[in-house]
């Protein structure tokens, strides 16, 4: 009890110094809470936007197809399965897709490209591509003989709306797959990979050209929140017949690069955060060293009275804990307040909305309100500041009572 009491009162010996140090901690905490919640919000937006453009959050595929996409590795009776999954999951965002490769030709040029067969009715619910048509329109129906393609590909092939696109590939059964379809739409997703290569056909047309029957290569599921993905994955998996050879892959398995990109960004940001925390830590270490040095005689008296060096060290450590908690409390209130406000109002800066809109991204970021967002930064600050007080506290162990008492 006396230890707690002494530590608390010692903290207030130099009010101005205590408040200045607590302010440094509070400033760092405010900044970290705001930055981390914003960062997590931005990651969610990035993941969401990336997945919504094309991939979806989950996909049902034949085992091994993702690593080695072969025409024969199909999902049988795909549209019926997609309908069953819609009913079971309660999600509208379920659509079948088939994928092949073809030589896409215009009158003057040819390029090898992936061709995707989609269900136009449902594709708009799993992908933002149908909403990113810059010229013309999206595919009208399952059976329509028409195609949409990316803007860069259209430019490279010198194709415009109404021009004919010739596709030449090989079907599931090894036969020649060939068709000529008019271009009805050109999309611009902001994703160079999609804009340069992708051609979409209605699923029935694709199945007919590539002799797929009712098969497709993937059922794309989109819509659940990040937190609900594992549950939806389990629901979808339960609908697959045992021994069917089908698997449910989540977005991290489908686009491992996205997670790596986020992790790399996180590491980069944390280097900045750690630099900030180190500056605060050094200021605290300085405060505590001063505080210990100026109280050497007092510590000597306490040692003479029978107090153990260990107890005095604990008092100094407790002072650091109190000071840090004070700064963290203020910082959490400020940083948390800003994060909560911006979570509802959105964070943006002049010009951001216009730039983001070109790529189909929302023009504002909403900081993510999560336990990690609020506690990660403060927890690291807490550990560093307590460690900063450890050195002065450990110095006390070396104090000799007689020398300490005669210290000036």
């Amino acid at each position: 009890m006396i230890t707690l009491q002494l530590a608390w009162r010692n903290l207030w010996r130099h009010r101005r110094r205590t408040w200045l140090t607590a302010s440094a901690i509070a400033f760092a905490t405010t900044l970290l809470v705001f930055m981390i919640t914003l960062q997590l919000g931005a990651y969610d937006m990035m993941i969401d936007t990336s997945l919504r453009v094309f991939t979806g959050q989950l996909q049902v595929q034949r085992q091994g197809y993702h690593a080695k996409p072969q025409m024969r590795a199909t999902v049988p009776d795909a549209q019926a399965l997609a309908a069953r999954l819609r009913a079971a999951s309660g999600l509208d965002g379920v659509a079948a897709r088939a994928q092949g490769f073809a030589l896409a030709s215009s009158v003057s040029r040819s390029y090898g490209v992936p061709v995707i067969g989609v269900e136009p009715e449902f594709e708009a619910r799993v992908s933002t591509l149908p909403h990113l048509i810059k010229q013309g329109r999206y595919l009208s129906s399952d059976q329509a003989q028409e195609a949409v393609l990316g803007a860069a590909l259209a430019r490279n092939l010198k194709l415009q709306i109404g021009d004919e696109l010739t596709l030449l590939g090989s079907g599931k059964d090894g036969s020649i797959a060939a068709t000529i379809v008019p271009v009805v739409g050109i999309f611009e997703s902001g994703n160079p990979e999609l804009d340069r290569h992708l051609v979409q056909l209605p699923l029935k047309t694709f199945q007919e050209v590539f002799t797929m029957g009712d098969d497709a290569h993937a059922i794309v599921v989109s819509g659940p929140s990040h937190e609900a993905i594992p549950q939806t994955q389990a629901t979808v998996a339960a609908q697959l017949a045992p021994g069917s050879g089908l698997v449910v892959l989540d977005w991290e398995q489908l686009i491992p690069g996205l997670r790596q990109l986020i992790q790399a960004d996180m590491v980069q940001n944390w280097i900045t955060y750690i630099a900030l925390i180190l500056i605060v830590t050094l200021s605290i270490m300085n405060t505590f060293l001063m505080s210990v040095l100026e109280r050497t005689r007092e510590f000597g008296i306490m040692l003479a009275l029978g107090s153990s060096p260990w107890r005095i060290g604990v008092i100094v450590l407790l002072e650091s804990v109190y000071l840090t908690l004070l700064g963290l409390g203020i910082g959490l209130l400020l940083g948390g307040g800003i994060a909560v406000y911006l979570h509802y109002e959105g964070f943006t800066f002049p010009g951001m909305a216009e730039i983001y809109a070109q790529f189909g991204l929302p023009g504002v970021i909403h900081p993510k309100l999560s336990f990690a967002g609020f506690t990660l930064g403060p927890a690291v600050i807490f550990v560093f500041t307590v460690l900063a007080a450890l050195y002065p506290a450990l110095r006390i162990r070396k104090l000799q009572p007689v020398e300490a008492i005669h210290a000036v």
Partner: protein
Amino acid sequence: MIMEHTVICRHVSKVYRQESVAVQALTDINLEIPKKDFACLSGPSGSGKSTLLNLIGGLDRPTGGEITVDGQRVDQLGKSELAALRLHKIGFVFQAYNLIPVLTAIENVEFVMQLQGMAAAERAVKAREILHEVGLDGLEYRRPGELSGGQQQRVAVARAIVSEPSLVLADEPTANLDSKTAENLMQLLAHMNQEHGVTFIFSTHDKLVMDFSRRLITLHDGSIVNDVRRE
């Protein structure tokens, strides 16, 4: 009748090393302080009186010889055992800045008892009684900064004797006090010695303190040159 001794020093010596130079602070000190004694170590600066007081109190270690306090060999104790000895058997009064500035007078008096693990109610009663005895009624909740030098020394005395130690060591207790306050403090210490039966050893230059003591031990260049009982 066998006289009981609170402190026994046998052939005690202390050498300080200052860089490469050895300084002989005490040489072959032999001393016995009986229980309830009121003894004064005097001598010029550098004579070794504070060094001897520090060795007896376990604040420093002798280079040679034996020191026994209340039956315990101080020179053989480890760091934590010395802390325990100081906590339970020895009270200290230093010349100034004796008190913990963030604690009130009563909390300073309770401090040692808290370290000893005494129950809150018991130590509050004892602290109040002793503060009353040293004449600090009404000043219990003042912090050291709000007390005069004499009042602060009274609190230090109260703290030193409240847990009823065998021995109180006072290193120049009147050094920062005016003569009137110093006399009052010495009267108080003499009263405590008689009332509580606590052994007192002072180190001082102050003639007033010497006049109050019942035994005057004079040191010079680290050796006892005179030891006079004045009863």
